[in-house]
């Protein structure tokens, strides 16, 4: 079951076949981001009204009930993500701070702790490391940062790892990387060893935790990418203003050239009769009627999400949502066989 977020005051829940199931209305400003925690079955939404809600499904009535999260931010919330253990979530906002929210059992509500320094501008994207204690954020101050999110309140016992070589407390900055443009999307690889981010200077950057200073940077020939996901430990799928997703492989120190995943067969020209073509030519000045783009999405792709993974953790299916209002499911294994030279 997938959910889609609309840039209106409410948002809709959809089943796989595309029929709207329920409308969840609570926010009074545009809903900026939605995340669904599959194991605990909770949905969190955040909006321009500076609030976030956690929705719990009432098993008896089948109704989603919202509970308010006290974010204590003065600007719109822009991004929200559940952590892998689903006991907390992070909300990025235009108030230049990140709120990590956890459940306070005593008072029966969600409380937030802020990470403020040294973030200097709006946070655009957040991703959790599989260990549940480390987060990466991309923001409008052209930087991608990694923080420790180990909370005392939830009795976290963080372990030393490549990203956190010595135990750090909450909001300690673990790494910082700079790009030329806003960082639109940031993602940890499935194992958490690598971090990839896409910035507005049409680049894809990947760094491995063992060699934190050497960033693999690919200056792509495409328009800026807005979303990036890992198809496997060694390859990423990204999409953005070019309206199609493409796959990049990591070859040692470099990124391969991207293979376009949206391959459409061109329709044979026998659609129109000769008379119709001349009429069209007379009326509009062009002899073909087709004004659609040659890609599945007709406008920028805003978000990619992995919807199904295979046995070894590689992505077999992902979904893309675009500004054209479409949600498209892509089967990577089917594409792998149909596009020559596609290695995942």
């Amino acid at each position, binding site marked *: 079951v997938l959910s889609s977020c609309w840039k209106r005051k409410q948002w809709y829940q959809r089943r796989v076949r595309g029929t709207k199931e329920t409308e969840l209305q609570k926010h009074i400003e545009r809903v900026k981001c939605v995340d669904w925690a599959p194991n605990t079955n909770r949905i969190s939404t955040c909006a321009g009204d500076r609030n976030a809600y956690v929705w719990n499904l009432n098993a008896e009535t089948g109704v989603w009930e919202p509970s308010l999260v006290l974010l204590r931010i003065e600007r719109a919330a822009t991004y929200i993500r559940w952590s892998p253990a689903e006991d907390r979530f992070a909300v990025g906002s235009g108030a*230049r701070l990140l709120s990590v929210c956890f459940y306070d059992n005593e008072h029966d509500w969600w409380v937030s702790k802020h990470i403020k320094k040294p973030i*200097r*501008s709006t946070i655009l994207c957040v991703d959790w490391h599989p260990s549940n204690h480390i987060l990466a954020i991309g923001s409008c*101050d052209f930087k991608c940062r990694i923080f420790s999110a180990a909370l005392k309140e939830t009795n976290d016992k963080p372990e030393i790892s490549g990203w956190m070589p010595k135990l750090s407390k909450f909001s300690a900055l673990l790494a910082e990387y700079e790009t*030329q*443009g806003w960082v639109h999307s940031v993602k940890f690889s499935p194992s958490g060893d690598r971090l990839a981010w896409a910035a*507005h*200077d*049409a*680049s894809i950057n990947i760094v491995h935790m063992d060699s934190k200073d050497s960033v693999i940077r690919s*200056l*792509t*020939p*495409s*328009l*800026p990418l807005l979303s990036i996901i890992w198809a496997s430990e060694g390859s990423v799928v990204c999409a953005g203003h070019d309206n199609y997703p493409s796959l990049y492989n990591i070859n040692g120190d470099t990124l391969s050239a991207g293979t376009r995943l949206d391959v459409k067969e061109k329709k044979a020209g026998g659609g129109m009769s000769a008379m119709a073509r001349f009429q069209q030519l007379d009326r509009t000045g062009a002899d073909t009627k087709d004004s659609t783009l040659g890609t599945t999405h007709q406008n920028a792709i805003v978000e990619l999400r992995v919807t199904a993974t295979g046995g070894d953790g590689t992505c077999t299916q992902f979904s893309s949502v675009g500004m054209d209002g479409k949600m498209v499911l892509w089967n990577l294994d089917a594409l792998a066989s149909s596009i020559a030279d596609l290695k995942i």
Partner: protein
Amino acid sequence: VGRDQTVISSGINAEYGELGEREMAKNVNSTQFRTVDVDAYDEEAYEDEARVQDDSGVAEVTERASKVKDLLSQMKTKEALVEALKSPPVGRDQTVKSQNYDTVMWVLKSFKGSDIDAAVADLSMVEVDILMKYLYKGFSCSPDKAANLLLWHEKVVAKGGLGSIVRVMVDRKGV
């Protein structure tokens, strides 16, 4: 202005201050507050780090100009192009930047139309980006050379794609 002014108040709201008379002491000491730079205290002010002085690439500019001259006189236009595009000065020193700009323009002018394809094909993506930045600078500074620059632009876009143009727009330091 450093003195107290006393104002005689009239009528109903006469306050009895320290002077004990029907006067109001009005403190108009200093208007210094008007000269305080309020923006300096603004916590939300964003300082773009790209504005910090960057001296990279300044030292080699003159040396590069002569190297490029040599290469061009030997008709090694491809090598001259690669040499001209190395580490451009991106700081705030305009004289150095325009000197490097002249070098690059001179190289671009020395190419025959048919040789451009081969030269661009051998450039790395970083060099392509730098070349694109100079092309756009050329469009704005030397509109008379536009015809030649447009020819280069077409070839460079074929190699670097729209991404290289985006990187020119997004670049905050500029060549």
